[in-house]
């Protein structure tokens, strides 16, 4: 028989004003299994808690029900109270008779009292079957994996490494830096991204705690928080990076020229190439699709000219395995595929370019060293039209979300263009101008007032070629007039989408994505840098469109989450999780399929379900799916719920 104590709180008049608390305590003292019941004005006060401690000790209680406010308020208080005198905290339950009884039934005291008593009775029934649980402790490997070497990944890696923990940074390209290194300048300060990002890149490259794996991709991930096993593919570069000194002679001697991805196909690179001069690591890779040796079986100019014999045409992909305790995903963004856009002549006319191409056109380190030119004939454009919200905020055709950075980078691009071509004109077609950051609105005003950027509120209806001009027809919805501009170049602020391949990576990491492929945070407001997979954190535009300050802030946030995980030797996990009665389980696998966290698997030997306590988040879906009752949630067992239902329906 249980030895349960019931403590009914008056909460001043909050409860006692409606519920007859003395009567409730009196009735409960006669309830089966209850050997003590009393009421007190404020249970959560020190005297109230002391009283509970005294009674638990004196009456040798094995569990208590505190009938008071919602468990979200004081469950932890009372659990700590009983834990302090050696009673298992999971043997303390709260009966919510304030928020869900006294406060909502103020005009009928009798019925409120009857309901409160029933709520307490049902809670006592649950408590009778509550197990004494102990939080799980899971050992932690204090090493982090950061996926993606853009500015978010760089920041997260540095934050963790500077705190003394090892970091493995995996980047799919041959250099870290990400899209930031492609940018011309950065809003709203017009800092040059090379100037501000390359010192960070060098720090990463030289950091004794960071293992930089460039030109690599995550192949497989297994394990769980604190104990991930990651297999990483080091993609074949045909260059032995250990030998390569980065002298660049191979690049100089390579006879093949192809369009450069880094320059957004506006300039050429060689078949053996680095991304940009400040690359970290500054090692080249051979593009086997275009290399003469791979396509025609001859040339080998790079090999002949390499004094350290670093070129190796026989190289293959290699794999390495790392054990890590936490993972930060910072895979960034791409612009939407131009094949998707049917309007505005993008992909049809050379002089209609996207936002990233415009960055290269305007970049001081770009193909023309910052002198704006139009791709078709290299002339300096005199009239440039910027079109905002191309693909974004367009639920009928493309994406309903706002890409967030386009308003700002368009101001910057128009401004840089005007600085380079003072007699030129920049027009911006916009829907709304969103400048919600520090110094952003001022930046817009500067663009309009000092640089005379002409803002036209309205959409563009038609873009077509007329001679060497691009005709842009649109509407100014503020004046109601039709606008026709003969432009030399058109820049489309295209929607940001998650970077290619993130879907596959999300599957490997068991991360949820939204319908557009952006990674889903654990809670949109309160857990914005965590994912639903314990131990996996999110940073940067992989989660949603973001600008640089936001991406960096989120990266530092994710890093601090990793550090707080690493600050303990073991990780404590709530024990309200699924547990299997192996004698009853028939191994049907329903629980395996229904689990959103891949926390259940069928044991290969015994053929019964097995819960991985570290992965289980304790939702109880498996228990509801189990046809035999073998799978039950700790302290939310089926028998417990039945007893509560019975307590509520009796009489």
């Amino acid at each position, binding site marked *: 028989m249980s030895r349960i104590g019931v403590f009914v709180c008056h909460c001043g008049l909050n409860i006692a004003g409606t519920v007859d608390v003395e009567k409730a305590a009196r009735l409960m003292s006669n309830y089966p299994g209850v050997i003590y019941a009393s009421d007190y004005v404020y249970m959560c006060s020190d005297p109230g808690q002391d009283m509970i401690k005294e009674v638990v000790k004196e009456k040798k209680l094995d569990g208590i029900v505190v009938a008071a406010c*919602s468990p979200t308020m004081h469950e932890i208080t009372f659990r700590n109270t009983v834990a302090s005198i050696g009673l298992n905290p999971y043997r303390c339950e709260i009966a919510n008779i304030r928020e869900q009884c006294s406060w*909502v039934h103020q005009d009928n005291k009798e019925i409120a009292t009857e309901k409160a008593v029933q*709520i307490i009775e049902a809670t006592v029934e649950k408590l009778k079957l509550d197990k004494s649980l102990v939080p799980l402790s899971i050992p932690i490997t204090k090493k982090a994996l950061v996926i993606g070497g853009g500015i978010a990944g760089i920041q997260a890696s540095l934050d963790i490494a500077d705190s003394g923990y090892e970091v493995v940074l995996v980047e799919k390209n041959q250099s870290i830096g990400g899209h930031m290194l492609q940018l011309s300048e950065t809003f709203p300060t017009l800092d040059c991204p090379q100037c501000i990002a390359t010192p960070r890149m060098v720090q990463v490259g030289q950091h004794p705690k960071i293992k930089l794996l460039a030109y690599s991709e995550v192949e497989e991930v297994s394990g769980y928080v604190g104990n991930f096993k990651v297999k990483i593919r080091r993609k074949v570069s045909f260059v032995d990076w250990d030998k390569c000194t980065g002298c660049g002679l191979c690049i100089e001697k390579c006879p093949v020229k192809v369009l450069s991805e880094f320059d957004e196909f506006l300039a050429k690179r060689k078949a053996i190439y680095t991304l940009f001069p400040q690359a970290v690591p500054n090692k080249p890779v051979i593009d086997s699709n275009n290399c003469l040796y791979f396509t025609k079986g001859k040339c080998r100019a790079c090999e002949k000219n390499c004094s350290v014999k670093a070129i190796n045409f026989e190289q293959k992909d290699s794999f390495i395995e790392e054990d890590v305790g936490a993972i930060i995903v910072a895979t960034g963004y791409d612009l939407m595929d131009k094949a998707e856009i049917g309007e505005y002549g993008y992909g049809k006319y050379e002089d209609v370019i996207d936002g990233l191409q415009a960055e290269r056109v305007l970049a001081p380190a770009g193909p023309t060293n910052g002198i704006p030119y139009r791709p078709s004939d290299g002339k300096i454009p005199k009239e440039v039209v910027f079109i905002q919200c191309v693909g974004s905020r367009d639920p009928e055709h493309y994406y309903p979300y706002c890409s967030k950075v386009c308003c700002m980078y368009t101001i910057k691009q128009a401004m840089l263009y005007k600085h380079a071509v003072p007699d030129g004109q920049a027009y911006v077609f916009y829907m709304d101008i969103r400048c919600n950051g520090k110094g952003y609105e001022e930046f817009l005003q500067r663009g309009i007032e000092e640089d005379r950027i002409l803002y036209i509120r309205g959409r563009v209806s038609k873009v077509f070629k007329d001679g060497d001009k691009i005709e842009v027809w649109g509407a100014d919805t503020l004046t109601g007039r039709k606008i026709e501009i003969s432009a030399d170049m058109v820049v489309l602020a295209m929607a940001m989408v998650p970077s290619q391949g993130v879907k596959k990576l999300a599957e490997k990491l068991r991360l949820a994505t939204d319908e557009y492929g952006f990674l889903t945070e654990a809670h949109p407001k309160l857990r914005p840098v965590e994912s639903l997979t314990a131990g996996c954190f999110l940073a940067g535009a992989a989660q949603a469109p973001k600008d640089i300050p936001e991406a960096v802030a989120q990266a530092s946030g994710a890093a601090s989450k990793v550090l707080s995980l690493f600050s303990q030797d073991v990780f404590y996990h709530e024990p309200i999780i699924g547990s299997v009665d192996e004698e009853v389980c028939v191994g049907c696998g329903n629980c395996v399929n229904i689990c959103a966290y891949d926390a259940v698997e069928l044991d290969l030997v015994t053929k019964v379900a097995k819960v991985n306590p570290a992965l289980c988040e304790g*939702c*109880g879906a498996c*228990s509801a799916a189990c046809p035999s009752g073998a799978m039950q949630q700790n302290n*939310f067992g089926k028998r417990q719920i039945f007893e509560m239902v019975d307590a509520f329906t009796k009489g």
Partner: protein
Amino acid sequence: MANFEPKIVGFLCNWCTYAGADLAGTSRMQYPPNIRPIRVMCSGSVDSAYVLRALLEGADGVFIGGCHPGDCHYVSGNYKERRRITVLKSILKTLGLDDNRVWIRWVSASEGKRYADTISEMTSHLKKLGPNPISKYWSL
């Protein structure tokens, strides 16, 4: 019949509906006392057997409250429950029960009013339906 007060057993998910019900209390919104709330971690953990148990034991209605679609704290528990209840409802009819005795509704943590309104609405709906006939057969 005029004085019939239906008994409702409610399963409220910890993260949304339970918090919504708490908010109704904090805001002192008054609603009929007919609901008896049971806190569960997720609406997706509500076994059909719980619902049947409640109905067989004489509850006149069963309420299941979960997070709005897309907001489930556990990714998709609310969808799982919605499917489960859809299937269960088809069985209820064969038991001679009106499938409208079981309500599944989405109430977020900020929707105290929605919770209070829903419980009021369900209570008056059940008053019209009358007592659960099964409890009568059961006692035979």
